[in-house]
């Protein structure tokens, strides 16, 4: 190749870009192996579910065969785990702090459920979550995974909040990094990042956490940012185990922005009343917004 002077200069100078040192390859490999395991775990779960769906379409003979198969399946280690799992539930107005054998701390918000196997921290660290919980995951060799109806979350060691309720899915990270996967996407959330979706999530849903003390419920506060009044009220119902009724159904569509102290029910209701400019009446467990 014949180069003129300008090209020669470009040729020389283009090698001078400074690149960061290559990370420790063994450590990267260890992390990669963990991610590969998570991938295999998820694979197993989908397979199991699809076989359940096949059942109703089968003929009689096959049903008998499956019945025998089921008896054998019950004796298998997989079924053992399935039936010998631990379940922790909270009702309205209940929070529960769970300390797992690996040192991981889970604070379960009201009306929520987690399920995990007896072999937790022996050959896996997988749990299932319905509802909302705050996680402080201890780092160890086993990847920590959370299954929700919206997708799977996998982490190594970090603190974050997950809300997986009927009205939507929300995840915010206070420390470290986590990975979220659903059928179509796999995205990373870092410290200070947050997603809130109604159905499936993707990369573009990532935003920064806008509130100071996240998550609000751990700090006994309700953070509202153009939150619909009925959404806030169902949160109040769960937190204080009351029922809230609206005299005027149109009120449900009001949106509220602000921070509400959530330590005392009367204070909460008073604030809501101020914000909506509507009075309330509290009788036993039923609050009516007039």
């Amino acid at each position: 190749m014949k180069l003129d002077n300008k090209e020669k200069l470009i040729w020389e100078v283009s090698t001078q870009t400074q690149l960061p040192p290559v990370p420790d390859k063994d450590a990267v490999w260890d992390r990669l192996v963990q991610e590969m395991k998570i991938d295999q775990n998820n694979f197993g779960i989908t397979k199991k579910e699809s076989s359940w769906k096949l059942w109703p379409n089968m003929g009689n003979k096959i049903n008998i065969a499956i019945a025998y198969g089921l008896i054998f399946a019950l004796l298998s280690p997989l079924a053992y785990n399935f039936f010998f799992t631990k379940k922790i539930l909270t009702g309205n107005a209940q929070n529960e702090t769970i300390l797992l054998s690996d040192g991981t701390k889970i604070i379960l918000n009201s009306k929520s459920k987690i399920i995990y196997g007896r072999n937790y921290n022996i050959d896996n660290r997988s749990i299932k979550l319905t509802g909302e919980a705050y996680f402080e995951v201890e780092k160890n060799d086993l990847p920590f995974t959370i299954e929700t109806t919206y997708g799977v979350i996998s982490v190594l060691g970090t603190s974050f909040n997950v809300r997986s309720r009927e009205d939507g899915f929300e995840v915010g990270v206070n420390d470290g990094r986590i990975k979220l996967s659903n059928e179509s996407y796999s995205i990373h959330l870092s410290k200070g990042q947050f997603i809130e979706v109604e159905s499936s999530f993707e990369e573009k849903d990532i935003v920064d956490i806008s509130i100071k003390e996240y998550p609000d419920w751990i700090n006994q506060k309700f953070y509202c940012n153009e939150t619909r009044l009925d959404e806030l009220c169902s949160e109040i119902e769960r937190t204080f185990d009351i029922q809230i009724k609206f005299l005027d159904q149109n009120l449900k569509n009001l949106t509220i922005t602000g921070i509400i102290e959530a330590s005392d029910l009367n204070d909460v209701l008073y604030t809501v009343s101020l914000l909506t400019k509507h009075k309330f009446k509290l009788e036993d467990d039923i609050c009516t917004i007039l």
Partner: protein
Amino acid sequence: MKEIEKNLLKKVKNSDKTAFRQLFSDFYDTLFRFVAYRVRDSDLAEDITQETFLRVWKKRESLVPEKSFFSLIARISTNLCYDHFRHIEVRNRHQNQLPDFGKSHFDDPEKVTQANMLEEEIHRIVNEKLPDKCRSIFILSRMEGRTNPEIAGMLDLSVRTVENQIYRALKVLKKNLDNYL
């Protein structure tokens, strides 16, 4: 195309983890630096490099051992970089800010020498103006110091093509660097 690489790929296709580790060891450094050149951030480069290898493993059954492995991982990682840039752009637009990735910026303009500025401009033009294949070849040549026959072997191309692509890169750079030369 090297026989060893082909054999490793065949084994990985059959879920051989030891072979995958070997492939990882052989290609990690080059891919990390390749991605780091593109995204200019060490942590992000580490993530993207790891995700690239993870995707190879997930899709191992569809590997084609006869095809160049570096071309494959270069393509996967480049797409991941695009995803990242698109995401930043969306976020910045959301916050009504101008995107600032890939633009040259100096901590202390007084201390920046002419050569540094030229280097920075080359870096920016390689990232922004060169087509993917041309950029891969240019980076392998200039940053990794690979010879043209080596690059041809890695990417399963003819030496002639490699030479042409490098020449093309130099032309694009020269054209865009008019104010600096």
